[in-house]
């Protein structure tokens, strides 16, 4: 059974999405049940593969029995298994959250929503599991298209933001496709293992260097590294709460996984780092990206926009950590993929709950979150502490590895940018804690004054429904759990990759 799992983990959600979309005609409740069953199966599959690949084992699955280079093969090694588990667990935990928003917001549209949800997870799972470069492009587009549709369902500004995302994202994916074409010209194969055997011999070919540039440019566009990030704030802040729980944490992280896969398995570290001192340039570039994103996050006052810029900053961490070239940096980048998925999930669900209950996007106008929604604010505080990088949350450990890698490689600008952004994050989040968590007891007591400041006092604001709170708190627990398990994760999985 374990050997069939790499194929099943992609096929099951694919079929389930068709079943979920079709079953909406039979009964309104079936799509959710089908989604739940499919995602539980994939969560089980990814955890069992995770246990299997601990210590460096590798699972290979040839689609329909055709061995490469004729067929497509799916290979799960330690890196894959970690990212796959992160994807599946987040998708599963997010399901009740999405369900509550879908019940209130999109009443007639449950079946298409769950169909899109499962297709999105299929795409991301396939990107993570596959070993074939073109298959990666196809699944990249599957996940992107469903992402565009899921984002376009939101408020009045979301179709325009989704259209913007669509245009930029498609160009990024097409650049990746062009890069794969260049590799295919030179090596004649699309299988990543075979490419990795041939590419070190072709190191000086200008085609391969161009292929590398195109692939990285395309992938970093989809990952929203600083100058190519224009689509992210609009899309993530206007998307519907029902779908932001999976889109926000996972999309950019899986793209960073693809970057690491390109670097480790296909092109090999020599091409990445030693040729034309790419490492220096890219790391400084990422440092600038981190500083720019942090300052923009400081400037904005809409809660979701702040979180979007924090995502862009985290992408800068991961990309910079990878381009550092030493084992600490890559370890930090890989751990940060998982940690950041958990942190972003926690923060976005909390932000969605807060903005939907208070009906207000701007932080300056929200008061008293802690009294009205204690669990949500606790989870938000936990996620914020993780972003700032305070032990024992997981954010601390990944930042530790990244800073250690930065100092080890002599890239002081990058390490300085990391520390600087931690301070600015502290400012951002503590500003939110101070202003919005507690209501002012001292002054501005009269209702007229409060109305004048546009603060919502009339609504009976209660805690978010249980289906939102439970995943939220469990994600907070996950953050702490991941932090404590970091040592074990590094030992068992990441060491074998580097």
């Amino acid at each position, binding site marked *: 059974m374990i050997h069939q799992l790499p194929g099943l983990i992609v096929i099951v959600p694919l079929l389930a999405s068709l079943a979920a979309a079709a079953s909406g005609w039979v009964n309104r409740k079936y799509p959710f049940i089908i989604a739940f069953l499919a995602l539980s199966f994939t969560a089980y599959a990814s955890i069992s593969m995770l246990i299997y690949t601990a210590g460096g084992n590798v699972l290979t699955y040839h689609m329909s029995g055709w061995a490469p280079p004729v067929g497509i093969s799916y290979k799960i090694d330690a890196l894959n298994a970690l990212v796959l588990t992160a994807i599946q667990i987040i998708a599963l935990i997010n399901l009740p959250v999405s369900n509550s928003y879908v019940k209130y917001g999109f009443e007639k549209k449950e079946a298409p929503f769950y169909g899109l949800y499962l297709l999105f997870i299929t795409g991301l799972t396939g990107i993570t599991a596959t070993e074939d470069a*073109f298959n990666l*492009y*196809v699944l990249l*587009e599957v996940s992107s*298209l469903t992402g*565009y*549709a899921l984002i*376009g369902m939101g408020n*009045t*500004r979301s*179709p*325009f933001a*989704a*259209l913007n995302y*669509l*245009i930029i994202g*498609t*160009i990024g994916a*097409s650049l990746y*496709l*062009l890069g794969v*074409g260049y590799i*295919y*010209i030179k090596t004649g194969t*699309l299988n990543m293992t075979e490419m990795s055997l041939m590419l070190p011999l072709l190191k000086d070919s200008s085609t391969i260097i161009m292929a590398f540039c195109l692939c990285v440019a395309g992938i970093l566009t989809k990952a929203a590294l600083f100058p190519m990030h224009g689509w992210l704030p609009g899309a993530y802040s206007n998307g519907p709460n029902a779908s932001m729980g999976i889109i926000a944490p996972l999309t950019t992280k899986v793209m960073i996984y693809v970057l690491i896969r390109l670097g480790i398995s296909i092109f090999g570290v020599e091409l990445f780092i030693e040729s034309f001192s790419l490492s220096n340039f890219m790391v400084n570039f990422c440092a600038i990206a981190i500083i720019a994103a942090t300052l923009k996050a400081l400037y904005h006052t809409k809660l979701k926009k702040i979180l979007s810029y924090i995502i862009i900053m985290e992408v800068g961490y991961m990309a910079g950590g990878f381009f550092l070239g030493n084992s600490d940096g890559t370890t930090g980048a890989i751990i940060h993929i998982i940690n950041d998925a958990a942190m972003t999930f926690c923060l976005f669900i909390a932000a969605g709950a807060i903005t939907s209950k208070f009906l207000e996007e701007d932080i300056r106008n929200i008061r008293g979150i802690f009294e009205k929604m204690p669990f949500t604010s606790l989870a938000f505080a936990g996620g914020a502490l993780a972003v700032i990088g305070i032990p024992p949350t997981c954010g601390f450990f990944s930042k530790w590895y990244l800073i250690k890698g930065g100092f080890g490689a002599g890239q002081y600008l990058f390490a300085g940018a990391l520390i600087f952004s931690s301070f600015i994050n502290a400012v951002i989040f503590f500003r939110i804690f101070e202003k919005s968590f507690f209501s002012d007891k001292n002054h501005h007591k009269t209702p007229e004054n409060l109305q004048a400041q546009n603060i919502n006092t009339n609504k009976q604001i209660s805690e978010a429904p249980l289906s939102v709170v439970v995943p939220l708190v469990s994600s907070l627990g996950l953050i702490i759990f991941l932090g404590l398990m970091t040592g074990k994760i590094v030992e068992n999985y990441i060491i074998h990759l580097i």
Partner: protein
Amino acid sequence: MEIYEIILKNYNYWIFIILMFTGLYGVIAKNNIIKKLIGMNIFQTSIILFYVSLSAKLDGTIPIITETDKHKPDTLIDAANYMNPLPHVLMLTAIVVSVATIGVALALAIKVYRTYETLEEDEIRRKIASGYTGEN
């Protein structure tokens, strides 16, 4: 002579580069959303043409093994005689992807039009900035 060689020998690559930049120009410089989408489609089409041009061989024929070839005695199927079918197959997938992308893009453009009554991007941005919420 060097320049003529570079242009004439690789004319297929030059065509695809010109198409690619035409598409990018459309996406960046044009104001209307539909024109941007057409530019994006031209960009994807140029990549498809690039792949297909990879598969062409001198004096190659269509990559289908017919009955007469199978029944000839002592015939080896020599791959060099047939055009490479793999890029064709890959590009079928890419064409489907680009069609689906255009479909989703047009659906989103319809929604944008219904909300903002216009498809010109600068007008839409002005309306967003002034807090236009639309009549839905």
